[in-house]
């Protein structure tokens, strides 16, 4: 039932959740004898106070947009893809293969080629659990988690035994050639006369991520495939009745989801480290779940949630660097945000709904056959509308 207007649903609920998380974090900081206000100031300054901070915030956000979209797309088919981490690792492998073994004449072609390889390997890594779900009934939640471990082990093997340059002690690939270097925001903005920090890792992948948001929005709400994915997610018996193949939807959705997660590698592997290292994903695959939850599986929501988590990541790193607040506490703060915006969503939503019911247009009960169409002002359209 649409009890709340859309603005409350989309903005108010996450905002209140966020404030609660911040409040609790402040109490925790207070409890260890630090000054929460100083901590917040430092976080904001560190993440948003300079183009250097922005560069890192946006770099992290780019990662989270890709993984968040991956989880969001799967959510629409009611598939819980927890394997973003592994799919992004495989994406990194794809980028490394394309960047190292193909001589690219220009970074634009390299971006396309490496992007395709990243998406392809990520898609394959998601397609296997997808196939197991569609054909064998093995739950994707279980199989995608397991595939994260397999991906980590595979990467380990490849980096140590195959890609490691001779003589190197470091389990990492060789440096990518100069031709595949992606323009950073510094290089992109300099011609426009905007001075952006030279050392920040944010790069053109941010624009790719933004484009991916638009493409996903079009896919989910404007194409037949998206319509079928949503229909399947809402009701499998109905999808069957309409002639929508469960096997096809499960496979296609997982492939798209995996490709998006894999695409993350153009940011962290190709754009930042410019070589493939162990643990390049840094948990971004898991943050994607929180981002998708907080963004309510909508590309616009995912975009802003990714920015928030980018801020938390960068601000948290600053906090650990400049104060005696231990690094672990940053994880606690991030966890609180995830807890409140994702898991405890209803804790905020239900009292808020009751509040709206009291002051606005209370709806008749929907508990029995006697529920009737609701007249009166309609409270915005459900997410499916646009």
């Amino acid at each position, binding site marked *: *039932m649409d009890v709340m207007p859309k603005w409350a649903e989309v903005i108010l609920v996450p905002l209140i959740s966020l404030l609660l998380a911040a409040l609790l974090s402040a109490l925790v900081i207070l409890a260890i004898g630090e000054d929460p206000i100083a901590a917040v100031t430092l976080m904001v300054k560190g993440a948003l106070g300079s183009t250097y901070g922005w560069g890192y915030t946006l770099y992290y956000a780019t990662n989270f947009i890709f993984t968040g979209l991956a989880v969001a797309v799967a959510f629409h088919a009611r598939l819980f893809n927890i394997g973003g981490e592994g799919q992004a690792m495989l994406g990194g492998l794809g980028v490394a293969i394309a960047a190292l073994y193909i001589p690219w004449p220009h970074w634009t072609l390299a971006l396309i080629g490496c992007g395709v390889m990243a998406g392809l390997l990520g898609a394959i890594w998601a397609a296997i659990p997808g196939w197991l779900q569609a054909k064998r009934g093995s739950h994707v939640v279980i199989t995608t988690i397991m595939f994260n471990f397999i991906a980590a082990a595979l990467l380990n093997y490849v980096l140590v035994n195959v890609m490691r340059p001779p003589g190197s002690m470091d389990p990492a690939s060789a440096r990518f050639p100069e031709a595949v270097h992606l323009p950073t925001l510094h290089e992109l903005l300099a011609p426009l006369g905007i001075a952006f920090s030279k050392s920040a890792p944010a790069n053109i992948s941010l624009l790719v991520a933004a484009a991916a948001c638009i493409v996903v929005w*079009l896919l989910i709400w404007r194409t037949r495939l998206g319509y079928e994915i949503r*229909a399947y997610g809402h009701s499998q018996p*109905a999808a069957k009745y309409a002639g929508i193949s469960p096997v096809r939807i499960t496979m296609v959705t997982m492939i798209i989801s995996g490709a998006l997660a894999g695409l993350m590698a153009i940011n962290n592997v190709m754009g930042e480290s410019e070589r493939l290292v162990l643990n390049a994903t840094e948990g971004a695959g898991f943050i994607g779940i929180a981002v998708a939850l907080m963004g309510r599986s909508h590309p616009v929501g995912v975009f802003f949630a990714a920015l928030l988590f980018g801020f938390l990541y960068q601000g948290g790193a600053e906090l650990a660097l400049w104060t005696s607040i231990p690094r672990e506490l940053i994880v606690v703060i991030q966890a609180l945000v995830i807890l409140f915006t994702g898991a405890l969503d209803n804790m905020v939503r239900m009292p808020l709904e009751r509040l709206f019911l009291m002051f606005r*247009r209370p709806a008749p009960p929907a508990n029995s056959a006697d529920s009737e169409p*609701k007249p009166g002002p*309609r409270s915005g359209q459900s997410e*499916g509308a646009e």
Partner: protein
Amino acid sequence: MTDTAPAIELKGISKAFGPVQANKDISIRVMPGTIHGIIGENGAGKSTLMSILYGFYKADAGEIFISGKKTDIPDSQAAIAAGIGMVFQHFKLVENFTVLENIILGAEDGRLLKPSLSKARKSLISLAEDYGLNVDPDALIQDIGVGMQQRVEILKALYRQADILILDEPTGVLTPAEADQLFRILGRLRSEGKTIILITHKLREIMEITDTVSVMRRGKMTATVKTAETSPPELAELMVGRKVLLRVNKKPATPGDVILDVKGLRVVDGKGVERLRGIDLQVCAGEVLGLAGVAGNGQSELLEVLGGYADGTGNVTLNGTPLDLSGKKSDGQSRRARGVAHVPEDRQREGLIMDFQAWENNVFGYHHDDRFNSGLLMDHAAIRADAEDKMARFDVRPPDPTLAAKNFSGGNQQKIVLAREIERNPDLLLIGQPTRGVDIGAIEFIHEQIIALRDQGKAILLVSVELEEILALSDRIAVMFDGQIMGERAADQTDEKELGLLMAGITDTENEHSVAEVEANLARAGGDASKEV
């Protein structure tokens, strides 16, 4: 006026949900030891009124008197204390608890279960004797049929010493045989002095069992009459506010070519049970073939296999060309391409995506049609325009294509499905339970649409558990029992009695049969069936 106080008296009850006045100044007196029916269309406010009586809602105005005493009912505990028991449309039982455990749930005395269980067992035995409510106290709820589960609900209320029983649409989930049994139990309860309020929208039930009946329309009580002094047409008019045709006006059919030809159709379900055991039937252009039968005798499987989403074996041709049954080239899409439209039995589970808006549901299954797409993207403007047009012609209320399907009443949901399937101009329409949970005004409209489609020369295969509906709409009637066709009759040369025997698997309808024989047969085939309703 009698000298005894009414068991329940409501005076001037009003309840508003925002701008919606669900109950307006309702007064009602129910005498003890009677069955009082409350009838009205979906959304008339029946359930709201009963929820007030049971303490779920607080009335904005008005008073409640129980046995002459003014009583406040702030919550359901107070209602139980006042001797009111409620049997909900959707049972509130714990599936993996036994009957006994369900009965004491919420009424345990003390911390240990043992004493309350044995106390409940004793009182269960005496209740069973007093009212003929036999159940096995140690059976698990998930193992007993729907009719039995309903008895457990009634026993729960009686165990809590209810003198007043409210039943909300009790027959909605029951087979005809189970409904008859329920009515026998209600009659027994009445003769033992219990007061019963029966909420329903089925006229037949009101006429059959109640002593007095109150009619509600749009939140108001429009009339309270003695059942013996009224008639179905009068009640229908009071409910809807205008004259209603209870019988469809139709010309005799003029059947044309055979459209659907089914020979030796067999379906085996996932558990290896043969659900269809060699079905032969034909449907011609311009006729309605009604498929009667107790729910669960294979009708659903037949619709599913013809609709393309279950596999079977046998020979089925449509317009002379074979239909694939193997699941390889058969799915909902290819069936629709062949001109088969399907109004599924369960519109909320299959026919609609409840969270989708009406316009999105308007193309469900037909979303690949060229006219709803432009290039890669769906043409939302075209779909919305088409939805508005269909909603206007099928009188869907409110005519708002951006409302989610779940926010429409049952009748209007069904109209959305019907509009989508009929307007595609199919050669064959498969239609299951067209009016289940649909109010009277909408039933009339839906029946007219089905007959209109027939008169355009389309073939229609109708499945319904309502015999009345089968008789009203069909030109020919085939009766299914245990996965087979027991016989076929011309609709104007048969009656409910003959069809009822066929439904019970008795083919020699000429001879007299005892009720016991019929029931035994039904129990044999229906034991499994009743559970899946």
